[in-house]
């Protein structure tokens, strides 16, 4: 009924839209579309987090000369599902003097923020929930709402460890937000648009990481560092530094509320990787080399959705590699890194890029 074209989803999307409109009043049709989007997003998040947690554990294990999960199901594939079920069945513990309302609200804020962020990600050609003209800005804005969850969760738990964790995280996210935005801004100077579909379209003839040469590389490195910090992952996991603060801001959480923090962390990891893939690696654009027509055709043969997830997987892999290699920074060093290194470099890079674009010195 709905022919799925792996190379262009707009046909599928349109036919669903028409099918619904033919049967329902326009208002109900829109509502039904929302419902479909919502359900598919939730499914996507659930599945991708389960996969990501499994991959993270396996990757960590291989880094550490271990086998990793291998008991539940073949190669331990069902391990994360089992863990999730365990978390679902666990008791909810709220400490006596906790601020109950905020305590319960915090995980939802985290999850809501990451869901909002997912809205603008272009998964493949024609597969994007909404394509607004300030897409990049919107994602950054939405994902930074998540810090409220951390702050509230840390405050409401009535635990000093979580409070310290939350305050650290507040300082951290506020500063790294700057870097992440500035490094994306440098790329926006190249692309000339904040709209994600336009950014991808501008990479038709080559990804920005190649076209933008040195400045793009600098921006990319800064983006990766700041992105890791933004997702609160090691070596920037100060908010939950387990050797210092036991579990940081989510010390007091248990059961499914804890799982929500976990979920939010992994989805924001996905978002950062997706934004990186979109801006620097052409999103779902296949890899093309100028005039190797045959090669380009083979590359075109791989569906865009595979390209997109492949690039995201690569970036996630790099971020995981960071986490499983480096020691953690201290809070003051974290801020020094941002304000003394990343920010000035970013600004210099921005000037450099503006100059390059003015002179047309990019491919």
């Amino acid at each position: 009924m709905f022919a799925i074209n792996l190379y262009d989803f707009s046909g599928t999307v349109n036919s669903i839209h028409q099918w619904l409109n033919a049967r329902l009043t326009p208002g109900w049709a829109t509502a039904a579309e929302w419902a479909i989007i919502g359900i598919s997003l939730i499914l996507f998040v659930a599945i991708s987090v389960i996969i990501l947690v499994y991959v993270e554990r396996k990757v960590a294990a291989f880094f550490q000369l271990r086998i990793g999960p291998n008991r539940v199901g073949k190669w331990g594939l069902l391990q994360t599902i089992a863990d999730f079920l365990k978390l679902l069945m666990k008791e909810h513990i709220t400490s006596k003097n906790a601020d109950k309302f905020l305590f319960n609200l915090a995980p939802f804020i985290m999850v809501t923020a990451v869901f909002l962020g997912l809205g603008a990600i272009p998964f493949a050609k024609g597969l994007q929930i909404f394509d607004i003209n300030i897409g990049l800005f919107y994602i950054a804005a939405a994902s930074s709402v998540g810090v409220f969850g951390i702050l509230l969760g840390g405050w409401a738990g009535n635990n000093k460890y979580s409070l310290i964790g939350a305050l650290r995280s507040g300082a951290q996210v506020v500063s790294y937000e700057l870097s992440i935005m500035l490094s994306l801004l440098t790329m926006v100077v190249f692309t000339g648009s904040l709209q994600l579909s336009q950014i991808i379209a501008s990479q038709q003839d080559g990804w920005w990481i190649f076209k933008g040469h040195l400045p793009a590389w600098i921006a990319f490195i800064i983006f990766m560092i700041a992105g890791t910090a933004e997702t609160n992952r090691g070596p920037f996991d100060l908010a939950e530094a387990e050797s210092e603060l036991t579990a940081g801001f989510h010390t007091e959480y248990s059961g499914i509320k804890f799982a929500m923090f976990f979920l939010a962390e992994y989805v924001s990891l996905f978002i950062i990787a997706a934004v990186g893939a979109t801006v620097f690696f052409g999103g779902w654009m296949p890899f093309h080399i100028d005039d190797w027509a045959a090669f380009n055709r083979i590359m075109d043969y791989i569906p865009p959705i595979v390209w997109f997830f492949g690039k995201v997987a690569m970036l996630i892999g790099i971020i995981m590699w960071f986490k499983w290699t480096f020691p953690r920074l201290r809070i003051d060093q974290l801020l020094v890194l941002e304000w003394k290194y990343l920010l000035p470099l970013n600004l210099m890079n921005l000037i450099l890029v503006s100059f390059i674009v003015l002179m047309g010195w990019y491919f």
Partner: protein
Amino acid sequence: MNAIVRYFAGIFKGLKTLATGMKVTGYYFSHARKEIITQQYPENRDTLQMFERFRGIVTMPHDENNEHRCTGCSACEVACPNGSIEILWQRLEDPETGKKKKTIDKFVYHYSMCTLCNLCILACPTDAIKMDQTFEYAVYDRKELTFILNKPGSKVRADVKE
């Protein structure tokens, strides 16, 4: 000017050390098949070979006639630092001479207290006890960790002199 050079040199040096670190972990990641060192424990039970000196539990070997070498001299009981061994002995009439003789009744061994220090083995004058290499003794009740080492109906071997 110098400060600027130092600033950038610092950045590059820092990035280089980070890259060296990533190279090390990256090597292990990419050679995981070769380098993984963990063992799959319950699965490798059949092939798992403990070292022959490994101290797992104190046992008393019996031969095919259900005879052991323990005379009940209590040397091991004295040597044990934590009272894991209790020798209960009895006086039995020797069928040949008709005299009453002290022999072992029960060799009670509390595995739950034993620190596997090997002192009892060293103390035993007749080499009646030895260390065994088995180690799977997890139970639900510590009563199950008290063993009687001499088997029921077993006797002291005739050639063992006190």
